Structure formats: structure tokens, C-alpha cells
């Protein structure tokens, strides 16, 4: 294996530099990914390719993924074809309308090369990390907070 010609820096989660929304059109889904800054939009255009998104959602077996650029809102619009198990009327899946795809895509890890500074890509209005009221105390749940789950090694 040859060494990569760019040095990866730390990976970032797509959700750190962009927000998103998804929905359905028949058996197809669209996911709009919107960068917080111009620098972030440049990163999206460079790294968030249609191929990358198709690979990320490979388990949904898209027949095709198209990407449209929407520069006026620093957005990329992805159309994922045939991913909804027949669509709202006949899908056997819980997410028959693709509503969950946006938040799922924002969990994608982007590994940025060293010439990219992700600090310029973040939202200017910082979000409070503890935005939601604490969940009802529950010893079992406490084992499974989102932070714990993400830091856990696979069992």
C-alpha cells in the first residue's frame, strides 16, 4: 500500500460544520446539507461527494445518488434514488419517508487534510452542549448516554 500524499489531521463529524434536513419524494429521498460558513461549503464541495454519500448509505442500496450545488445557501442537495423500500405508502421500514437520513448523515466522519482549518467552518453562534434537560435518572440509561455510547469500544 502506498502512503497517502496528504497528511490527515484530526477527523471531524460532518455535523460540526453543517446542518441538514431530509425528506421523501415517492421512493426517493433528498438530504440537504448546509454549511455554516463559506470555508465549510468549500469543504463540503470538495469532500462530500455523491460517491461518498452513496457509500455511507450503501446499506440502503441506492440505485443512484445525485448531488446538486446550491451556493446561495452554501448547500449541497443529495437525491438518493430507491432507498425508501417503496416509499411512504408501502415501505415496511419505520423511516418510510427518509426523515432520519439527515441526522444520520451528520454523524459521518470527514478526515480533512492538513491544509484545511475546520475552526473556520464552525457555526458562529455556539450551541450549548447541554441543550436538553437531563433525562430522568435511571441507572440503566446512564450507562448508555450518547457520549458513553460513542466512546465505547465495540463489545
Amino acid at each position: 500500500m502506498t502512503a497517502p500524499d496528504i497528511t490527515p489531521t484530526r477527523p471531524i463529524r460532518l455535523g460540526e460544520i453543517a446542518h441538514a434536513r431530509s425528506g421523501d419524494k415517492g421512493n426517493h429521498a433528498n438530504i440537504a446539507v448546509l454549511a455554516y460558513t463559506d470555508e465549510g461549503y468549500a469543504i463540503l464541495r470538495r469532500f462530500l461527494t455523491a460517491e461518498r454519500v452513496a457509500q455511507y448509505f450503501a446499506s440502503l442500496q441506492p440505485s443512484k445518488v445525485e448531488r446538486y450545488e446550491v451556493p446561495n445557501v452554501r448547500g449541497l442537495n443529495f437525491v438518493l434514488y430507491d432507498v425508501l423500500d417503496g416509499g411512504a405508502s408501502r415501505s415496511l421500514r419505520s423511516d418510510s419517508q427518509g426523515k432520519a437520513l439527515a441526522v444520520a448523515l451528520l454523524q459521518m466522519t470527514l478526515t480533512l487534510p492538513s491544509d484545511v482549518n475546520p475552526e473556520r467552518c464552525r457555526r458562529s453562534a455556539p450551541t450549548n452542549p447541554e441543550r436538553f434537560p437531563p433525562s430522568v435518572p435511571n441507572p440503566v440509561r446512564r450507562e448508555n448516554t450518547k457520549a458513553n455510547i460513542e466512546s465505547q469500544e465495540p463489545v
Partner: protein
Amino acid sequence: MRRIRIGNGCGFWGDNLDAPVRLVRDGQLDYLTLEYLAELTMSILAIQKQKNPTLGYATDFLDVLRSLMPLLRQQTQLKIVTNAGGMNPLGCARAARDLLRHHQLDDWRIAVVQGDDLMPRLNELLEEGHLLHHLDTGEPLTAVRERVVSANVYLGAKPIVEALKQGARLVITGRVADVSLTVGPAAYEFGWGFGAADFDRLAAATVAGHLIECGAQVTGGLWIHADEQTRLEEVGYPIAEIAEDGTFVITKPAGSGGIVNEETVSEQLLYEVADPRAYYTPDVVVDFTSVQLEDQGSNVVTIRGASGVTATDTYKVSIAYRDGYMAAGTLVIVGPQAVSKAQLSGRILLERLRQAGWTYQRSYVEVLGAGDAVPGVWPQGYEPPEVVLRVAVHDPRREAVERFTREFAPLVTSGFAGTTGYTTGRPPVREVLSFWPALIAKSAVTPQVELLP
């Protein structure tokens, strides 16, 4: 410059029943729009109408209208435009008229927009060569003709303008493009035409209509950063304040919950959009990449610069056909290795049915809590303390699906330790009405506007 305020109090049939009252009370509206028809709502309404010819419209609208009565007396400027008519706009209008009269609002002129329903002449259209090919697969409609329950054109804004010209205060339509509920009032109020000179203004009103058509989705609903402070429990429904030149703002009633900012508007701008440079409507094709958003703060976002080009010579047609039956049931599996146990329980359920002679055209096992809502995407390898097992089947035979619904309860005693959650009885069986999108030449369709006597 003159401006009109159009508020949308309903984004789909089943939306919050109290939202229209709050929006009218606090929104200083000129127009209230109410959008009830999702892609398959028409087919459900068609079946209701088959059973009872006086039904077939969104009955929620009457509850909303009833709740608005005291406000309608005070707000003599307000007009209402809604697609609540569904498969029976005339029936809906008659019921609305009776209700208005009952509340001494006899002077309300009601107009009905029809002509969208192709079912009465479907065979004739097919014979004339309107083959209504499936937009994705290219198959002609004859493949499922015998099973078709509804076929409706998405009409545009022109008949709504005509209804308003005739003095209607309440316009009830069947299937129209959702955005037309907004484009119609704007075009009427400002005297816009539908020619090339007006494309950009029609495009602007189309963007406005697109932004408000899903109700609270532009005022904080689904917003990635919504939290407790967003006060979604009293979320305000959206208002488009449109100026004569097509510039508009998106906002919400003062004091309401939710939020309107550049993020909520840009997320909704691309909601359920394919190619943003070509958003097709019956009246104009809009370039969504042309609009400029400016966040003014205080829940006001200005949108300008919309551009549009001439519409195509076809209408979109939404067709639904009977496609068998489906049901989905759930159980809760608790304890160590809940995910594995749930997966195996799902297989056991289907295997028992197979041994009893029942196999299904399609079946699916999901374990919710293990990442299956977006299968194969979330990181695997943690052990949730409990999961929801969900099994769904689809089959042409109703009796096969009925039999499936009886296979959940036995697992509570004959499944694994920690199997529970059988709390709501057998899951319901529902008829599947599959969606068949198509196009039809505009020349084959005649929109009709009728004032109710």
C-alpha cells in the same frame, strides 16, 4: 409598497388542530391557507367517498373552521384558501356553508375549484392516448388500471385567482399544487398575470408557498438546533409577508414559540426538492439557487431575487392503486443481548407462520434501539438495555396479513426471557395504496371554478 400577509395554519391532514386559531388570532393575516393533502391522502379520501358519497374531504377542516368562528366575526378582512376539498370539494364546501350559516356568517361567499379528478374519464383519457406512464419506471398505467382508486392532476394558481376575482372569501379546492394556495392569493391581490413578465414574481410567491406549506417546519420544527428554549410546545405557524415586487419575508406571530432564522429557512428551502434549479409547478419553473436570504433578526428572514421560467405543457398527476395489505407490530425485548434476542424473535415469528403455511410477498424485521431506523449506518457494537422489535409484512391476501397480526402475542410466553410490550393488542391491517406519479398534457384538463349558491 403594498404587502399581504399569508399564514399557513396546517401542513398536512393530522397537523395541530389549535395552530390555525393561534395563527389567525395573533398573525394579522390577510389570508389563511390550510394544506391537507399529502401524496396518498387523496386515495384514502377516494375510498372514504366510495363508502359514503357525502365524504371524501378533510373533515378536520370543519373542526378548524368551527374553532375560528369568533375570530372570523372580528377579522372581516380575512380570507381562507384550502385544499381540504380532497376528492369531494363540493361536499366540503356545502358542509362549510352550513357551518358558517349556523354561526350567522351567511355572507361568506364560497368558491369551489375542481377539474383535478381524472377518475370519471380515466378510460377515455387512456383511449385518447394519454398513457400516464409512471414517471420513474416508464410503465403505462394500463399495468395497474383495474386497481386504480384515484387519479388527480395538481392544478395551479389560476383557478384560485379566478375564485377570488368572483368574490370568494373561502376557496375550497381539490388537488392543487401546495404552493398554489399561496401563489393564488398573491397573484390576485397584486394583479399579476401568468405570462413571462410575471415569472419572477410568480417564482417568488412559489418560494414563499414552498417555505410555509409544511407549517412549523420553517418556524423551528425539525431545526437541527431546536432545544428547550425553542419552545416548540407553542410553536408559531409561518407567515409569508409578500410585497408587490415579489420580495417577501418569512416570520411568525409575535410571542409564539419556535424560531425563524436563516437556518430554519434554508433547511426548509430544500425540503423534498430534487434539482434546486428547476422546481416544477403548474405555473412557473423556479430556480431556488436564485434567492438571497437575509436574516433580519427577531424571527424575520427576507427573501429576494427569485427567478422563474415558463412552465411545462404538462400537469403532474398523482395516481394511487390498490396494492395488497400490510401490517406492522412491535414487542419490547429487555435484558442482556436484547438486540440478538430481538432479531431471533423476529425470525421465529416468521418461521412459525411459514410452518403454518403462510409466507409473504415482503417481510421485514427491525430492531429499534440498535440503529435499524437507518440500517447499517449507525455505529454498531453497543448493548442497549432494551429494544423494540418491529416486524412488518406486505401481501396481496388480506387473510395472510390478518394471520400475521396474531403471531405477536404468543411470543410473550413462548419467546425469550424479557419479552414484553404487548400492550395495544393486535396491530391493525391496512390496505396498501401505492403511488403512481405521471404527467398529462395540460390541454386534456379543464380546471373549473364554481361559486356555491
